[in-house]
């Protein structure tokens, strides 16, 4: 599209040399084309293709026919789909709140001018530096009833001496998965908030101090408003990723026991394995409306920021 537009505008100039502005534009297009082709072909096109598939009864090897909203009607009558919706909402909301408090607290802590904070910052980054699937493998191990580290600690410290099958029973599976997800995710929040804190002008604090503001008032009226844009962007982006994360659930529980931790990507993956692609695609597509709202907010905030 864009390339055609340029070549059309260049045509009349063909007899003479290309004008500098046009040559510049042409180079600009040529430089961005490889990225654009890949992203249009393998992100934008599949995105709309997914929506199309979700309205057909496509199976592996047969394109299928248009069935309207049948797949969605079918899904909304499935208990496992409704469980997926509620699990996703709980996971996103609870882990966002936990990461917000931990991240903010930690950022304030690491912003204190005390010896050793450089080392501490490096330590805090470790869960984030760890490959995600490994972090969740390790937590799967920590959660096993016998030989897992968590029950061992609880027993050794005398907090709880019974044996808890963290990932194996319905009541603890979702909280356990959330704990692991928060452990892996909080460093990103803490580091983002810390970077934002360091960008707050010091004289604002001095001025607030002169006016007799207490530490809490300074936090409430100086710190929070200054870093609010960063908080919002981090919350929104993290929500998108949490709602769509596959590996944490796949590695720890595969959605079990009996759908207690089922989420969209895992349900769609299982759907794909049954070869009924229409229904499987409908699972992913069903979350697009919620996702669009989040994406719209993020892009809007980033634009405001710039």
């Amino acid at each position: 599209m864009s390339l055609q537009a340029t070549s059309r505008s260049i045509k009349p100039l063909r007899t003479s040399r290309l004008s500098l502005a046009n040559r510049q534009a042409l180079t600009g297009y040529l430089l961005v084309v490889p990225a654009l082709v890949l992203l249009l072909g393998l992100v934008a096109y599949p995105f709309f293709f997914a929506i199309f598939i979700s309205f057909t009864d496509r199976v592996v090897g047969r394109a299928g026919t248009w069935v309207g909203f049948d797949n969605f009607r079918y899904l909304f009558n499935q208990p496992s789909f409704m469980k997926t919706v509620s699990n996703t909402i709980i996971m996103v909301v609870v882990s966002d709140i936990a990461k917000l408090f931990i991240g903010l607290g930690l950022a304030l802590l690491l912003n204190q001018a005390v010896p050793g904070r450089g080392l501490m910052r490096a330590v805090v980054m470790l869960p984030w530096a760890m490959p995600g699937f490994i972090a969740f493998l390790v937590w799967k191990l920590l959660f096993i009833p016998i030989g897992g580290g968590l029950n061992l600690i609880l027993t050794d410290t005398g907090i709880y001496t019974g044996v808890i099958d963290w990932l194996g029973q319905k009541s603890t599976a979702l909280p356990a998965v959330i704990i692991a997800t928060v452990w892996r995710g909080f460093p990103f929040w803490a580091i983002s908030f810390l970077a934002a804190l360091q960008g707050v002008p010091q004289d604002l604090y001095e001025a607030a101090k002169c006016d007799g503001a207490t530490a809490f008032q300074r936090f409430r009226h100086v710190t929070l408003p200054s870093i609010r844009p960063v908080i919002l962007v981090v919350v929104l982006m993290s929500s998108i990723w949490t709602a769509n994360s596959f590996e944490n659930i796949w590695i720890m529980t595969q959605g079990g026991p009996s759908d207690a931790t089922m989420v969209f990507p895992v349900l769609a993956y299982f759907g794909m394995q049954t070869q009924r692609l229409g229904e499987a695609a409908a699972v992913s597509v069903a979350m697009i409306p919620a996702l669009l709202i989040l994406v719209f907010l993020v892009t809007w905030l980033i634009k405001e920021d710039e």
Partner: protein
Amino acid sequence: MEGIDARPVVAGLAKPTRMQALLTTRVRKIGTLVLIYGLMALVAAIVIFPIYWMFTISLKLPKEIYRLPSLVPDNPTWRNYQELIEKKDYLTNIRNSLIVASSVTVVSLLISSFAAYSIVRFRYRFRGFIGRLILLTYLTPGSLLFIPLSIIVAKLHLGNSLFGLVIIYLTFSIPLSTWLLSGYFRSVPADLEEQAMVDGTSQIGALFRILLPLSLPGLAAVGIFTFTAAWNELLFALIFITSESKRTVPLGLQYLITGDVLLWGPIMAGATLAALPVMILYFIAQRFMVQGVTAGSVKG
């Protein structure tokens, strides 16, 4: 805590001397320090314990893991590592992951540098639109795309090949890399390139000789992000790779946990081997990575 306890003593006195006031502030300072270091120790313990546990279990045999669980291994052994490499062909997984991750990193850095250079330094129609499109593709989760992509990849005959994985991973890494690199490029003044171009360098030459060398910290951070993201990817490898000889590290480990009996020793040995290089990279490049986060939020 000490600081709070000390206060009423001073308040009770009619006129605290300078000495006493000095003492109180010092006591309060120490109290704050105790609180800060206490919290830091707690956080450090929560962060480090799972990592420690991963390494400990990798040194234990099944008997020690289940029958006599303990925080410190009694008879540490490298047997799990041996078994993983000799019987599970883990080195093949590592080789495949290295090929995929380094190819993705090199190609992605090149394509993204071009795209970022174009968006930051050139003027043309649709430039703003293209920039926003790239941001949007970054925010499109892979979990939305894997079903249509499985059909497209099959049609392109890219299934079950490392090359196919590289192409798919590029679509995730390019949006983020382009976005981060645009930020770095914007912070480099354009005068230097213009000067070089006046001296006869082409626009592409200015990119390679001036802009990229000046953005080395940014390139390093973006390169590490890209490498680790490709090194860690599970979902698409799971869908596209079907033959054992082409499994990447995440895939090799995930097949170890789908059996009936989980061999935690070898699994954790594999986890340690896979995590170590990446974590060392992050540790060395820590400062760049933090800058990377500030430049634009990075998936976490």
